Every structure is written in structure tokens, then in C-alpha cells.
């Protein structure tokens, strides 16, 4: 495996692209995020980890304005906690939701054309990363296999220049081979665009993440370099209930 640690990944010194400061999310009576604060530096991959239901997805949704949030959220220094979703996205955030959320009634091409009106499936990134989609350009996205839909969902954000990518479990449901490929894509993208990544696949995290933020029950319980977490088996077990090394064997 390539050691990617040599790439500029610290981000220290430069201003963070995204800051969360004491962010809360409440749904009706349930207090889901209870004061989440962390920063996403301007380069590299920041992984947001945690068990099921701790609020990872909710955090991403809070950033992009899809969850009712309070607290301060800064994108490139300007507050966005009251901005509408469409505006935030036009301000430079790309979002890959965990449920894929492709437009089932539209063709693959039309799905992509929503974001890149003149290119659609012709865009070079798509051809390079997901040749399968090019072949299926006229198929209704609703009839794609789960993995293929995931590709559409990913391709959709890569068509545009983003200041930050929010990606929620991109490799879920992808075949192992494709997981590797996607990991490479993400690593490559992260070289120019910072990525906030939610992921359950720990080997992948180990491979591409620079920093980790671990959530538990709506609070941040750990922040640090990915390498440190990987190195500390006890810490991993404590935070995530599992050892990264053992997983990597599979």
C-alpha cells in the first residue's frame, strides 16, 4: 500500500474550511446533537466516526441545512447556520447523502445534467471513474443496482468544483474492488478539496483519512490524527468497539 502520509495533510496554519461551534440539533423532543464542535482543515480527509445512531449523518445534515440546527457553523469564515440549503451548496459544499437519493425517474445522464447542464455523463471524471455509468446513460436511475446508484450519487458532486465535500458512507454497498477504487478517488479528490467523510469501513479510513473526529451520543469524544487512533488499539476499541488491525485482515 502506498504511504500517503507524505502528502500535505496537516492543514495546520491555514484557516479551517469548516468550523462547528457548539452545534445542537433537536427533533421534537429528542436532543440529537448536544454541542458538537470541531474543525475541518482546508486540506485532506477528515473522518467522522462513531457507532450507529450517534449523530454522524445528523452532523452533516446540520452543516448543509437539512436538519434544524442551532449554534455556529462557519464555512470559510462566514456563518451559514441560517443559510438555506441551496445557497450553502452554491457556496461550495458538495453533499453525498447516505441513502444515495438518486432521482429514480430520471436517466443517469439527466441525474448528472442537473448539476452539470452541458456535460452530463460526458464529463471526463465520470468516464474515468465510473465507465459503467457511461454505458448506462439512458437507463432510469431507479432501476440501477444499489452500487450503481452509489456511483451516480458520487459522480454528481464530483462534477463541480467544491470548497468542501461532505460524504456519508460512500462505500456502503460497493463491491470490494470498487471500494478500493473509490478510496483512491477520494484520496485524489482530497488533494485539492477537503473532505469530511463518514465511514464505517475502518481499513478505508486508515488508508485515506488524515484526521478523525469520533462521536458518541451526540457529542465529540475524540479528535486527533488518524494515525494516532490507528496506532492505539485500546483507544480504537474503546471508541469504536473494534480493532482496526483485525478488520484489516479480511
Amino acid at each position, binding site marked *: 500500500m502506498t504511504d500517503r502520509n507524505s502528502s500535505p495533510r496537516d492543514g495546520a496554519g491555514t484557516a479551517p474550511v469548516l468550523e462547528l461551534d457548539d452545534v445542537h440539533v433537536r427533533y421534537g423532543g429528542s436532543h440529537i446533537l448536544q454541542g458538537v464542535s470541531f474543525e475541518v482543515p482546508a486540506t485532506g480527509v477528515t473522518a467522522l466516526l462513531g457507532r450507529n445512531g450517534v449523530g454522524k449523518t445528523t452532523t452533516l445534515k446540520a452543516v448543509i441545512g437539512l436538519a434544524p440546527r442551532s449554534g455556529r457553523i462557519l464555512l470559510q469564515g462566514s456563518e451559514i447556520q441560517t443559510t438555506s440549503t441551496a445557497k450553502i451548496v452554491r457556496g461550495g459544499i458538495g453533499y453525498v447523502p447516505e441513502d444515495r437519493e438518486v432521482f429514480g*425517474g430520471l436517466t443517469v445522464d439527466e441525474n448528472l445534467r442537473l448539476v452539470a447542464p452541458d456535460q452530463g455523463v460526458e464529463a471526463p471524471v465520470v468516464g474515468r471513474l465510473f465507465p459503467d455509468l457511461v454505458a448506462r446513460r439512458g437507463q432510469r436511475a431507479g432501476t440501477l443496482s444499489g452500487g450503481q446508484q452509489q456511483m451516480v450519487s458520487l459522480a454528481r458532486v464530483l462534477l463541480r468544483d467544491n470548497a468542501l465535500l461532505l460524504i456519508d458512507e460512500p462505500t456502503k454497498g460497493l463491491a470490494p474492488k470498487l471500494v478500493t477504487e473509490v478510496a483512491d478517488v477520494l484520496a485524489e479528490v482530497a488533494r485539492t478539496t477537503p473532505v469530511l467523510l463518514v465511514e464505517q469501513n475502518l481499513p478505508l479510513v486508515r488508508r485515506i483519512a488524515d484526521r478523525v473526529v469520533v462521536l458518541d451520543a451526540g457529542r465529540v469524544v475524540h479528535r486527533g490524527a488518524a494515525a494516532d487512533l490507528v496506532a492505539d488499539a485500546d483507544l480504537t476499541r474503546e471508541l469504536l468497539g473494534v480493532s482496526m488491525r483485525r478488520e484489516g485482515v479480511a
Partner: protein
Amino acid sequence: MTSPTDHLTDTHTSSGEVAVDDDDTAAPRPAGQRPQGRAHLLQRLLPVVVLAVLAYLPYVPVEVPGLLPGRVNGPGSLQLLATCLVVGGIALSYDVLFGRTGLLSFGHALFVAAGSYLLTISLSTWDLPLPLAVLAALGLSTLLALVVGAVALRVGGIAFAMVTLAFAQAASIIVMRNPGGVTGGEEGRPLDRDAVPDLLVGVVNAPYRYWLALGFVVVAWVAVTLLVRSRAGHAMAAVRENEQRAAVLGLGTYRVRLLALVAGSFLGALGGVVHALVLGGSNPHLTTSEFTLSLLVMVVLGGAGSRWGALLGGVLYTYADARLVEVSSSAVLQGLPDVVRQVLSQPLFILGVFFIVVVYFAPSGLTGLGGRLIRRSGSR
């Protein structure tokens, strides 16, 4: 992906909050979630108390100016209340389809009208005695429901709504055409007075018609309660929420929906029978799509998927419909500019606007709104 049934499920909960339901949600809440002992008892007792109060009304000679025409137990008031109750019960029967099973039927009026017309026809044209006539009306209406349901349920969602609307429209046309002189066309068909007990005829006997209507509501209430608590009721909720999942669990979704439609229609037809008895005849208004639409309006007004909601919606709607006429001719409007007054003097205008307001501010219905207020004050 959105499917028409998804739209339906939205009725029950608005943006994540549970539609307030009585203890009869699809499945009772697990033990830990049950309402506290005393509150629960109260909830159980409430229907009984309400019933007792309602049953006693014919003995209450009090005037409530403005609210009711004359004394509470005067014939006018009791006739009005009886009509309200019958329609409330019919709304309850419609909720079996709409609120419980997610079937947006625009043809429910068809079965209500079938019950009503078949009763008057079997009394006057076929000369059946009352008990047989009632049986005939119920039996034939249920058969009709079975046939119509079997065809219409081949589609779902909005298409089902439109298809049932078309069937109802056909029935309406047939009734208007007055085939063989049995339906009386747009003039309707009065009840054969000699064929029904004297107690149901005449202004002085309004209390008995009122009790009859109340009896129907009780029957409908109990039937819906039992149905909802039965396995069928749970299956109906399952079909409403996710049809495909229900199918792979082994619930025959077509049969569940057909069952709901037939059960709802049976109660609806019973409502039609009582309606004919209370009003002294059948009239084509029952067959119109407006009537079905108003049933939908009632259920939503009160709160879909809840017995209190449907009943209350039906009663309130009918009451408002009848009493708004008074408002429009009242002195309050006299000072207003002409155009405004003319518009406001149309009861349907007020009703329509009121309905929009309710949908808008209380998407889960009046009972939902009430429940929300209670909960809010409770949590403080």
C-alpha cells in the same frame, strides 16, 4: 422514490411528530410507553361518559341560544344532532379506508347512497318489511362493495381515487336517470311512512330518531375499535405504511385492502340506512362526488386514523354546514360592503376557507391539534 401511498402516510405524522392517536394506533404501544394508569383509565372511560351524556340529551330542556335551534331536546335540535351523528358515523366508516388503510377512495358515497336507496326502494318498491329491507340493503351494498373494490383495487394511490370517483359518478348518473322510477331521479325518494314504526316518524318522535343515530355511532365505534385491534387492523396499518414489505411478510395486501374497503363500505351502508330513516328518505345528494369529498374533508378536519377525529370531524362539519346558513343571514354581515357580504353569505365559502385554515394550521386535524396543545401544556 415517492409513491402515492407515501403521500398518504404523510397524513398521520407531520414532520416527524406522531399523530396523536388514542390508544388504538395500529399496535398498542409497548408496556413502557403506555399512558399512566389513571390517564389511561380516563381515556377508556371517556367514550362511555360521552355516550351517557349524549344519550341523556333528549331529557335536557335547556335553550342554548345561537348554538342550536331552540331547546336542546326540541325536535329541531335533535333532528340536527341526529343528522350530525349519522354523518359522524359515516365519516368513521370512511376512516377505515382512508385513515387506517391509506386508501384514498372518492367513491365512499356510493356505498352510503346504496344503503340509503336500497332501503327506501326495498320498502316502497319491493314492499319488504323493515328488518328484511335493512338486511337487503346491507347485503346488496356489501356485494356492491366487493365488486367495485375487486376492480378498483387493481390500482393504487391517486389512480384508485380517480377510479372510485368514476364509479361513484356512474352511480350518481344512474340514480339521476331514475331507472324504472325507483330512485326518483334528482327529486329523491321519500321513505314509505307506513313501513316503518311510528316511533321513527313525525316531529314529536325526533328523540327516537336521535337515539337511533346515536346507536349507529356506537355500533360503528365498536366495530372500528374491534377491527383496529384485530389482526386485520394491524395488517391494514402495515399495508398503509409499506405495501411491499407487507407483501413479503405474507400479508395479502390485495385482500387486506379489499377487506378494509368492504368493512368500511358495510358500515357506510349501515350509515346510509340510518340516514334514510332519520331523514325520512333518500336523496341524490348522497351520491355526488361532493359528498365523498366532504367525507374526506371531515376525516382530515378531525384527524385521520383516529376514531375521535373522524367522528368529531363528521359531526362538526355537518353542524357547521347546517348552522353556517344562519351566520350568512345574520345581522353581523349587514354592515359589510356588498361584495364581501355576498361572498360571506355563501356557507360553502366559509366552510372551504375554514377547511383550508385547518389543514394549514393543524395538518393532523383538530384532535391532533388538541393533543398537541395538551402535550405542550403537560410538558411545561
